[in-house]
């Protein structure tokens, strides 16, 4: 008896296949290129209204208040991208730009309504600021975001209190401040300031005359700082000439 031979597996049309493969690769590469361009070009920044002065006494300042470029960050403690920026990118910014006196960095609260525990985290940081340790608490809160965020717990106070202890705050003083919501007015003022400036999400940065509404790598951030620095230097001779004339 002759064994029935099974048909060989279908090979497909190689020419048509490679054309389809090349088309998919090209479309994909174009999509990736556009995404990268969108993330790094200056076109994604908006020019802000110069009649709204930058905040002087609000928020939390890091570095020299008279630095040539003053950067403001609107952030939400429960925002994962803000945590990424704070833990990955910001250490470089502090070391290379803030400590060298090129920029000052001011942190402002902007609470995203979808984040259930962000307000309490902001209050925890505001109460740490009372003891002169805002930035220590800022770092601790972002580093432990996965422990106290709404995705992990509905009662974040325990973790936040642990963090207060970790950064060596007077915990009973901190707790009284936290429980009485002592800095509610300041937090609300920060929120209103952000809304006045058309902040729509976090993180949002104001660097010079640009408002950038997305996360950035260090290089992208530095590019904005360099542009702002060049504008500041270009404006400086005019300012001194104006002062002489007056």
């Amino acid at each position: 008896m002759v064994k029935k031979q099974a048909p060989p597996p279908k090979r497909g049309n190689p020419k048509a296949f490679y054309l389809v493969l090349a088309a998919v690769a090209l479309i994909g590469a174009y999509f990736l290129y556009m995404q990268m361009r969108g993330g790094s070009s200056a076109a994604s920044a908006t020019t802000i209204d110069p009649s709204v002065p930058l905040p002087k006494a609000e928020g939390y300042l890091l570095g020299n208040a008279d630095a040539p470029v003053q950067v403001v960050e609107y952030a939400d403690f429960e925002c994962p991208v803000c945590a990424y920026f704070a833990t990955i990118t910001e250490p470089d910014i502090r070391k290379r730009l803030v400590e060298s006196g090129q920029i000052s960095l001011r942190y402002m609260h902007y609470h995203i309504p979808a984040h259930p525990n962000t307000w309490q985290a902001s209050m925890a940081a505001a109460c740490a600021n009372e003891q002169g340790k805002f930035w220590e608490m800022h770092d601790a809160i972002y580093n432990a975001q996965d422990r106290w965020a709404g995705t992990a717990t509905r009662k974040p106070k325990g973790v936040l209190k642990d963090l207060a202890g970790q950064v060596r705050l007077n915990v009973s003083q901190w707790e009284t401040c936290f429980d009485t919501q002592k800095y509610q007015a300041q937090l609300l003022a920060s929120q209103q300031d952000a809304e006045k400036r058309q902040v729509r999400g976090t993180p949002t940065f104001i660097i010079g005359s640009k408002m950038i509404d997305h996360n950035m790598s260090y290089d992208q951030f530095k590019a904005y700082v360099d542009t702002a620095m060049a504008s500041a230097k270009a404006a400086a001779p005019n300012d001194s000439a104006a002062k002489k004339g007056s």
Partner: protein
Amino acid sequence: MSKRQFVALLALLGLLIAIYLTLYKTGAIAELACTTGSCETVQMSRWATFLGLPVAAWGIVFYVVLLALALSGLQGSLAESRGVSLALVALTGWGVIFSAWLTYLELFVIHAICQWCVVSAILVTIAFAISWLDLRDHSRTDAALGVPDST
């Protein structure tokens, strides 16, 4: 389109997704196009890194190997090779297991879903099913030709 060609196409699509997520993770892309779910929550979680590298970067390695294997399985004598079929099943099977673990983490640990990760998981699952069918076809052919059951 043959089954291996289909697997190669799926691998290319998966590779593009993995590159996209890696570029986001490294800061080259500022925002993810994420219409549903919480891509950023997932991508910024501590589970988005595996053995010191972003999970998406491992995805690039996986899909490059899968693409190379599927394409090599279209060339010359390898086109009839049952060994290539077995390797495709093993590789995509590993991909399905890894994707299932990631999906478990998204649903029950991170409590957020990344739509791009879901698409990648679907792609690798389809690739596994197609590879399985490809292996079945090659096993039938080999049996019909009396080829010993070995690679």
